[in-house]
C-alpha cells in the first residue's frame, strides 16, 4: 500500500519539492495514492497542514501527464472542478495554485467562474475550458443546467470540495449534493476529494462524497486524517475587572484587550455579530491612546472597504482587526500571532476554526484568548477549554435534503434537457442528503414544479414541465429556463439597504450624493426617525431618511449612538458545550478552577437555592414586585428555549395560571405572570412535571407554530428557493418588502386551504430543525422527565439574575443608552439576590 513518494511524484514534481528542501507530507502522498486507485477521499486536516496543495496535487500530476493540447485535435474539457463556499476563496486558491504551476513550468490552465465573472469570459470558458475550474455551488447548478453540460463535463475526472464541513449543513449543501449526483450521471468516472476541518462525525462527510444506494448501509469515501499540529495555547482572559452578570458587550475587558494588542504583532479579534463588532471597535478606539492601527471587518461593510482592510492585513500594516464570521473561512491573510475571541464560543467547531486563524504554520502553537462577556459565558469558555478544543468538534448533523431545494433542482434538470422520472429519482437518491427520498414525495415535488401541485388543478394548461408521450418530462417553454437561471441558488438574505453618506437640506428631506458605506438589514432602519444616531462602519452616523431603497446618513459629532443595537449571540449554545456547563454546575469540585468571582456566585446560589446535578432540570419560582416568576435552566440554547418559553406560556394560560410573558437566553428561560406558580406546583395544579411533560410537543406546538411569524419567515425562504415566487424577473427586481408581504399572504391562504401542501411540509421541516430547534427541545424534555427539581424561593436567586436582566430587552440589548438603565436595574436585583 505505501509507496515511496518518488514512485508517485513525476520527476518534475519531485525536483520542485526537493528544490525547496521539502518532502511531500504523508497526507499529500496518501492523496496521491488514492488518486492512483481512483478512490474518493475525505481529507481532514487542521489549518496550515497544506490541505489545498494536497487536494490539488494529484490533479496537477494527472493533467501534466496528459500533455499540451495539440492543434487540430479535439479540445479537452475540464479535468478538475473545485467548489468552495466563498467566491473569495476561489480567487485565493487561483493565486495559490499559480505559484507551483509556473515554478514547475506546467502547461495547466486554472480559472475561476463566479457570479462576478464577465459574460465574455464565461462564453470563452465554454469554448475553451480550463484544466481546472474554480467555482461555487450556484455556478455549478447553472453549468449543469446548460444544454451543453454533457460535453462541457465529459472529461471531468476529479471534483475537489473545499471547506466541506461548512458546506454540507446548509441548503447550499443540498443543492451541491444534487449537482454532484448530476455530474456523476454525466461523467460516471469522477471521484471526489473533500477537504475539511476536524469534525465530530466524519462518516457523514464521507457518505456525502460518494453515491449512495437506498436500502443499503451508507457507502463511505476513504478517510485521510492529519493529526493536529502543535496544540493551541488558549486561555481565558484573566481579568482584574468585575465580570458582568448579563449582557454581551464585554466592555469591562476593553483595557485588557488593548494591552494584548500592544503586546502582539497582529491580533485578530472575533465577535459573534456585526453590532458587537461595531461596538467593540468603537470602544477600542476610545482606549487606543497610542493610536495603534486597528481596523474593522464585517460582511455589511462595502466590499471596497473590506478589500482595503484585507490588503492592509496582508501587508502587515495593521495591529488588530475586529471581525465577524466573514473572516471565518479558510482565507489566509497576514501574520496573525494572537486571536482574541469575545463572547462565548457557542460551538467548539467555530472556536477551533477561528483559532486556526492564528499562525498558519502548523508546527507552531496558535495563541488565543477567550473573553467571556458575562458569568455564564465564563463557564461556557471553561467548558470549551476542558473539551480539549479540537478534540470534540460539533458541526451539526446533516439533515434530510430540503424539498424546496429539490424543487429548484427538478426545474434545473428539465432546463438541461428531457428526463425520465425513474432514472432521475435514482440519481437523486444517490445524493447523501436525499438517500431517503421516497417515490411519492419525489412525484409531489415534480408535480409542484409542473403546476404548483395543488389539489385544485388550476394550472394544468400552464404547466412549466410536462410528461410527454415518450415518457420524459420536458420544459414547455424556453422562458422558464431563463426564469430558472435568474433564480438559482439557496441564499436568501434578509432584505438589505445600502447606507449612503449624504446630508440634509432644510425642508427637502435627505439628499443623496455621498459614497456608500455598506449595507444594513432593513429591519434595523424600521423604527429609526430622522436625527437618531447609530453605530456603523466604525463611526456614529445620523439617520436622515430613506431615498429609493437607500438609507441616507450623515456623520454625527456625537460620540455615543442613541439607537441601541441588537447584541445577542446569533449562534445558539451547542449541545456539547451545554453539557459541559451542566456538568460544571453539578460538580462543586470544578468551581475551584473558575475565576473567584464566578465561583462565589455559584456558592451563594447553593446557599440561597440549589444547583442542579448534571442530569437534573432546576426550576425556581419566586415573587418579585407584583409578579410571580418561574425560571428553568435547561442549557439547551436560545432557540430551543424560545420555543420552550412559547409552549410553557401557552400551557400555563390553558391551565389558568395567567402567564404574562417570558424571556429566553442561551442558558435558561423565565416565565412570569399574575399567579404564584410555586403555590400552583405545590398543590399540583399543575405539578411541575405535568407542565414540562413531553406532550407539549403535540397539540400545543402545532397550534403555536401555525401562527408563528417564524413560520412565515421560513415559508418565504422556501417559496423563493422552490420557485413559487421569484427573486428576480427578467427586467425587474423585486424589493424585499414586496416579497415579504406577498409570501405572508400566500402562507395564510395556503395554510387555510391546503395545509399539507408540499411547500408547507418543507416549511415545517425547516422551522422544526432550524429556528425552533425542536429536536433539541424534545431530547431535553425526555432527558429531564422525572428529574425536575423545583425550588420555591422568597426572593430571586443569584443564578436567576442574568435572565431577569434580559426582561424587557430581549429584542434590543446591549446598546449605549440602555446600558445605564440596566446597570441601575442590575444593582437592585443583585442586592436582593445576595442578601
Amino acid at each position: 500500500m505505501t509507496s515511496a513518494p518518488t514512485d508517485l511524484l513525476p520527476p518534475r514534481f519531485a525536483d520542485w519539492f526537493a528544490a525547496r528542501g521539502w518532502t511531500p507530507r504523508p497526507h499529500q502522498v496518501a492523496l496521491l495514492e488514492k488518486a492512483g486507485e481512483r478512490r474518493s477521499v475525505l481529507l481532514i486536516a487542521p489549518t496550515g497542514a497544506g490541505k489545498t496543495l494536497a487536494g490539488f496535487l494529484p490533479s496537477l500530476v494527472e493533467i501534466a501527464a496528459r500533455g499540451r493540447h495539440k492543434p487540430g485535435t479535439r479540445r479537452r474539457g475540464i479535468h478538475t472542478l473545485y467548489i468552495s463556499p466563498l467566491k473569495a476563496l476561489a480567487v485565493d486558491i487561483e493565486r495559490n495554485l499559480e505559484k507551483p504551476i509556473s515554478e514547475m513550468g506546467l502547461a495547466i490552465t486554472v480559472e475561476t467562474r463566479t457570479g462576478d465573472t464577465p459574460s465574455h469570459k464565461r462564453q470563452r470558458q465554454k469554448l475553451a475550458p480550463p484544466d481546472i475550474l474554480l467555482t461555487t455551488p450556484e455556478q455549478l447548478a447553472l453549468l449543469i443546467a446548460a444544454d451543453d453540460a454533457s460535453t462541457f463535463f465529459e472529461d471531468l475526472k476529479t471534483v475537489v470540495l473545499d471547506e466541506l464541513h461548512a458546506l454540507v449543513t446548509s441548503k447550499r449543501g443540498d443543492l451541491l449534493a444534487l449537482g454532484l449526483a448530476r455530474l456523476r450521471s454525466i461523467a460516471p468516472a469522477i471521484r471526489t476529494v473533500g477537504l475539511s476541518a476536524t469534525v465530530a462525525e466524519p462518516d457523514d462527510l464521507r457518505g456525502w462524497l460518494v453515491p449512495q444506494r437506498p436500502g443499503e448501509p451508507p457507502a463511505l469515501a476513504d478517510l485521510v486524517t492529519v493529526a493536529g499540529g502543535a496544540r493551541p495555547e488558549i486561555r481565558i482572559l484573566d481579568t482584574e475587572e468585575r465580570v458582568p452578570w448579563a449582557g454581551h458587550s464585554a466592555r469591562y475587558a476593553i483595557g485588557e484587550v488593548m494591552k494584548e494588542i500592544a503586546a502582539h504583532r497582529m491580533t485578530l479579534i472575533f465577535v459573534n455579530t456585526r453590532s458587537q463588532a461595531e461596538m467593540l471597535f468603537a470602544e477600542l478606539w476610545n482606549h487606543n491612546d497610542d493610536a495603534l492601527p486597528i481596523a474593522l471587518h464585517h460582511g455589511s461593510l462595502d466590499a471596497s472597504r473590506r478589500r482595503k482592510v484585507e490588503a492592509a492585513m496582508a501587508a502587515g500594516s495593521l495591529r488588530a482587526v475586529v471581525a465577524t464570521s466573514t473572516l471565518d473561512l479558510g482565507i489566509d491573510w497576514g501574520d496573525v500571532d494572537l486571536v482574541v475571541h469575545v463572547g462565548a464560543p457557542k460551538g467548539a467547531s467555530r472556536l477551533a476554526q477561528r483559532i486556526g486563524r492564528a499562525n498558519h504554520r502548523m508546527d507552531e502553537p496558535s495563541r488565543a484568548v477567550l473573553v467571556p462577556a458575562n458569568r455564564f459565558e465564563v463557564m461556557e469558555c471553561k467548558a470549551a477549554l476542558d473539551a480539549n478544543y479540537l478534540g470534540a468538534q460539533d458541526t451539526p448533523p446533516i439533515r434530510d435534503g430540503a424539498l424546496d431545494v429539490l424543487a429548484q433542482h427538478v426545474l434545473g434538470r428539465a432546463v438541461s434537457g428531457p428526463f425520465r422520472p425513474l432514472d432521475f429519482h435514482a440519481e437523486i437518491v444517490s445524493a447523501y442528503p436525499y438517500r431517503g427520498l421516497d417515490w411519492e414525495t419525489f412525484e409531489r415535488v415534480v408535480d409542484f414544479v409542473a403546476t404548483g401541485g395543488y389539489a385544485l388543478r388550476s394550472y394544468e394548461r400552464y404547466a412549466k414541465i410536462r410528461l410527454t408521450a415518450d415518457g420524459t418530462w420536458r420544459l414547455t417553454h424556453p422562458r422558464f429556463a431563463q426564469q430558472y437561471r435568474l433564480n438559482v441558488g439557496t441564499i436568501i438574505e434578509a432584505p438589505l439597504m445600502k447606507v449612503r453618506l449624504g446630508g440634509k437640506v432644510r425642508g427637502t428631506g435627505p439628499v443623496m450624493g455621498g459614497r456608500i458605506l455598506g449595507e444594513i438589514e432593513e429591519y434595523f432602519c424600521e423604527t429609526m426617525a430622522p436625527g437618531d444616531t447609530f453605530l456603523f462602519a466604525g463611526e456614529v452616523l445620523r439617520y436622515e431618511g430613506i431615498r429609493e431603497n437607500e438609507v441616507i446618513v450623515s456623520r454625527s459629532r456625537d460620540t455615543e449612538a442613541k439607537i441601541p443595537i441588537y447584541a445577542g449571540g446569533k449562534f445558539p449554545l451547542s449541545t456539547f458545550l451545554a453539557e459541559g456547563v451542566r456538568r460544571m454546575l453539578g460538580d462543586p469540585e470544578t468551581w475551584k478552577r473558575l475565576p473567584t468571582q464566578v465561583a462565589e456566585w455559584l456558592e451563594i446560589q447553593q446557599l440561597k437555592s440549589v444547583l442542579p446535578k448534571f442530569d437534573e432540570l432546576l426550576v425556581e419560582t419566586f415573587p418579585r414586585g407584583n409578579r410571580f416568576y418561574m425560571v428553568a435552566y435547561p442549557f439547551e440554547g436560545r432557540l430551543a428555549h424560545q420555543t420552550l418559553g412559547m409552549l410553557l406560556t401557552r400551557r400555563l394560560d390553558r391551565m389558568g395560571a395567567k402567564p404574562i410573558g417570558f424571556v429566553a437566553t442561551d442558558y435558561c428561560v423565565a416565565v412570569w405572570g399574575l399567579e404564584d406558580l410555586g403555590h400552583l406546583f405545590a398543590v399540583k395544579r399543575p405539578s411541575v412535571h405535568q407542565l414540562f411533560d413531553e406532550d407539549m410537543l403535540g397539540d400545543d406546538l402545532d397550534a403555536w407554530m401555525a401562527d408563528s411569524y417564524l413560520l412565515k419567515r421560513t415559508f418565504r425562504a422556501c417559496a423563493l428557493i422552490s420557485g413559487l415566487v421569484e427573486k428576480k424577473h427578467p427586467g425587474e427586481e423585486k424589493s424585499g418588502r414586496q416579497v415579504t408581504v406577498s409570501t405572508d399572504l400566500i402562507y395564510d391562504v395556503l395554510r387555510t386551504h391546503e395545509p399539507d401542501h408540499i411547500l408547507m411540509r418543507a416549511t415545517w421541516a425547516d422551522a422544526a430543525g432550524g429556528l425552533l430547534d425542536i429536536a433539541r427541545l424534545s431530547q431535553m424534555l425526555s432527558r429531564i422527565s422525572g428529574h425536575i427539581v423545583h425550588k420555591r424561593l422568597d426572593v430571586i436567586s443569584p443564578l436567576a439574575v442574568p435572565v431577569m436582566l434580559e426582561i424587557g430587552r430581549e429584542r434590543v440589548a446591549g446598546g449605549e443608552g440602555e446600558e445605564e438603565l440596566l446597570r441601575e436595574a442590575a444593582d437592585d436585583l443583585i442586592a436582593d439576590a445576595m442578601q
Partner: protein
Amino acid sequence: MLTRDGLIHLSGAAVRLDWSGALHWPEEELLVVADLHFEKGTSQGMRGRFLPPYDTRTTLGALEEVVRRLSPKRVIALGDSFHDRAADGRLMEGERNRIRALTAAVDWLWITGNHDPEPPEGLGGQSVDIVAIGPLVFRHEPGRGRQTGEIAGHLHPCARVGVRGRALRRRAFVSDGARCILPAFGAYTGGLNVLDDAYRGMFDRVRMIAWMIGDQRVYPVRGPMLVPD
C-alpha cells in the same frame, strides 16, 4: 371625530370602520368594500407563477362573514373587484355560486375599477362608475387634491408604526375626517404605505389618521406617528 358609540364622522355621515376592512354606514344599512381582486392568484399562471389558487374563496369567506355580521341592505364594491377581464372565466363554479348568492341577497353595486372596467355579467349586482348617497360619493380611484365626502379604494393603503423597537405594518383605512380611502379587502392584495408619494396632497397630514387593522378591532394612529417603509 370619534363618537362614543364608535362611529366616526365623515363629512356629516356617521360610519364605522370595521376590522374586516369594510366600511359600515348603519343609518343607510350600507356596507362598502374595496379592491377584492378576485382571481388575482391565478392571474399569473401563464407566466409560470403558480400561486395557491385559493384567494377567491378566502376573500369570499371574509365577505360572507362581514355581511352576515352587519346585515346590510346594500353593498358597494369599490372597484377592482375582479383582478382582470378574464377573471370571470377562471372562477370555479362553487365560487361563482357564492358570489351570486351574495349579490342576490342585497342590493349589490359593482363600481368599475381600472382592473375591471366592465365587471362580468351573470354574477348579479349592478355595474356603475360612481355612486352618491347623501353627503358621500363612492368611487374607485381617489380624486387628486383635497376631496370632501369621498369614499375610495384603489391605493390599498397600509400604515407602519414603530412600537418599542418593533415596526408594525398593517392594512389601514386612511382618513382626515373629510374623505376616506379603504384598505384592499382581497386575500392577495399587498399594501401601499400611506406616506407614499401616491397619496400626496390628499390628506391633511396633521389631521390624518390611519385606522390600522388588528385582531378584531381597528387602531387609530395619528399621522405624525407613522413611518414610511
